[in-house]
């Protein structure tokens, strides 16, 4: 079922964080909305430190898959295991607490806030000071604020967005907003990062920047990345393994090369004569 691992971009010895044991194991997931079968009997796993892509034509169920992983949707059937533990009654908040961060297909930034505030808002789970401590500027509140700021600044530097740090995000162009959203997801220091079409609507330079950022995150922090993407070139270049969905069903699971040459995938994307 699970495909062997092959690195399309890096040799195994070059990786700072070698691919390890499964982090996420999805077993026979089915999700229905009334009569619509969004996902049918899907199983795959995600290994520690790998970049895992989910691809498929429009309406294949890719975003639903991500929403199931981080608890926005609860599947009718199937189980999800996170580091060997079966997850029941997942909510986005619980997923965040376990170290799963994500970005959204349509940018879901906090529009009225600056870039810095958006990224610092990603530190929610690491702020333990109560509102009274914050109001009275108690030592713990101050310390956490400075800590969050340091981490936010580190991410800002990492993503090369220093110049816009105090700009309200609503004023930024699309590509930068996408990058800020990635920054917010990173601020929580996640172990698993879910990216929903991080490169949709970008031009080639923006795509290259984003690719580099994703590879850097994976390489620098060892973050496991699960991403949905339409751009085949991008997917084939950066991911370790690829799952292909079509009409809510898994059709192929394997390395980029295997996927590329698979007849089912070609049929799903190009259509097939009936």
């Amino acid at each position: 079922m699970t495909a062997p691992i092959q690195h399309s971009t890096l040799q195994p010895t070059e990786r700072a964080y070698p691919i390890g044991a499964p982090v996420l194991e999805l077993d026979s997931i089915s999700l229905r909305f009334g009569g619509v079968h969004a996902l049918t009997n899907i199983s795959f796993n995600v290994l520690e430190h790998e970049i895992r892509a989910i691809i498929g034509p429009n309406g294949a169920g890719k975003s639903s898959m991500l929403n199931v992983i981080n608890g926005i949707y609860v599947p009718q059937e199937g189980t999800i295991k996170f580091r060997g533990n079966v997850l029941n009654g997942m909510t986005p908040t619980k997923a965040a607490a376990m170290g799963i961060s994500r970005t959204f297909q349509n940018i879901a930034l906090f529009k009225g806030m600056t870039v810095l505030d958006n990224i610092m808002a990603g530190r929610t789970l690491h702020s333990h000071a109560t509102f009274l401590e914050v109001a009275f500027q108690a030592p713990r509140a101050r310390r956490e604020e400075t800590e969050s700021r340091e981490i936010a600044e580190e991410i800002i530097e990492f993503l090369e967005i220093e110049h816009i740090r105090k700009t309200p995000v609503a004023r930024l162009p699309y590509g930068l907003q996408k990058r800020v959203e990635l920054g917010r997801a990173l601020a929580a220091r996640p172990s698993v990062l879910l990216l929903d079409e991080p490169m949709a609507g970008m031009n080639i330079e923006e795509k290259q920047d984003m690719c580099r950022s994703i590879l850097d995150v994976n390489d620098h922090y060892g973050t496991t990345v699960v991403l949905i993407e339409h751009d085949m070139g991008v997917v084939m270049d950066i991911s370790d393994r690829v799952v292909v969905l079509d009409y809510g069903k898994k059709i192929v699971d394997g390395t980029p090369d295997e996927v590329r040459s698979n007849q089912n995938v070609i049929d799903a994307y190009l259509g097939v004569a009936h």
Partner: protein
Amino acid sequence: MFYRETGQFRTSYAQDSQILPLRQDRIGMAFLLLAAIMIPFVANAYWLSAIMIPWLILSLVALGQNILMGYAGQLSLGSAGFMAVGAFSCYNFILRIDGIPFIVAVILSGVCAALVGIVFGLPSLRIRGLYLAVATLASQFFIVWSLDKFGWFKNYDPSGVITAQKIVIMGYTLDTPAQKYWVVLGIVAVLALLAKNMARGSVGRGWMAVRDMDVAAEVTGLSLLRTKLQAFAISSFYCGVGGALFAFAYLQTVEPSAFTIDLSFRILFMVIIGGLGTIIGSFLGAGFILLVPIFMNIFFHGLFGHAVDASIISASEQVLFGVMIISFMIFEPLGLARLWQLTKERLRLWPFKH
């Protein structure tokens, strides 16, 4: 030329995130506070008790409303109801607990209002926007009705208008307008500072995250339930303290009919005109809604007082005030606070363009 950051370097994140990073702002704020403290030495009793005291108190309530509406994005129309809770709690605390310090009674009144606010904030978990406003309208009517209906709250006073007790602090009875003004100023200044601290810290980011994109807020690990109810509680605390001061330092009576839907709407307008999601906007908005009609009244009566019928004058004042609000909202929908911010940005360059 005078208002710019040249030569002021911040070398740590703590310095960069302090409350007033600019030296000019710190000096300005010190002057403002000093002036506010000195006002009783130059102003007469009318100015203090009819203008300054209600302005400060309504600013505090507007601040509470702004926390809920401007920062946390929860539209609410119950602020006068929470003020009533504060006023009546304060009355009952002083009545029933012998020797309770006034400040403690005021804080406890705020806590009572916060608890009521949490209850009426529960619908916000299911409904949003205008529908939530309608749901919170219930609090307005329910609270005022129950204060009227159940005699215990009024200590079975048959008249319905209770005289508020005297403000006694550390054994001194404060009954001159100047003394009351200082009490109000102190409470408002401290609470405004606390609000600013919350707004610029992790608490405020949580509120704004819920306001701007609740799904994403949840994904960062924020509990919507806790954040929304916290905003309701803190907002109602401010309204409750404001209500207690409104009754004790301004009206000097405690009566349900002082806290009508009218007042809720005025507070709503203060927040919108002042600027949603700003602390200073609450003060500016309260000043605008409260003071402009008063000044217009004085001005027009001075101008046409003898020539034109008084009722025509007051009617035209209302028309003019309405026109002012509408045109202001067209030209500056982000409120007075935005104007202030733009002025500051211009001042950085003035008088040299580059």
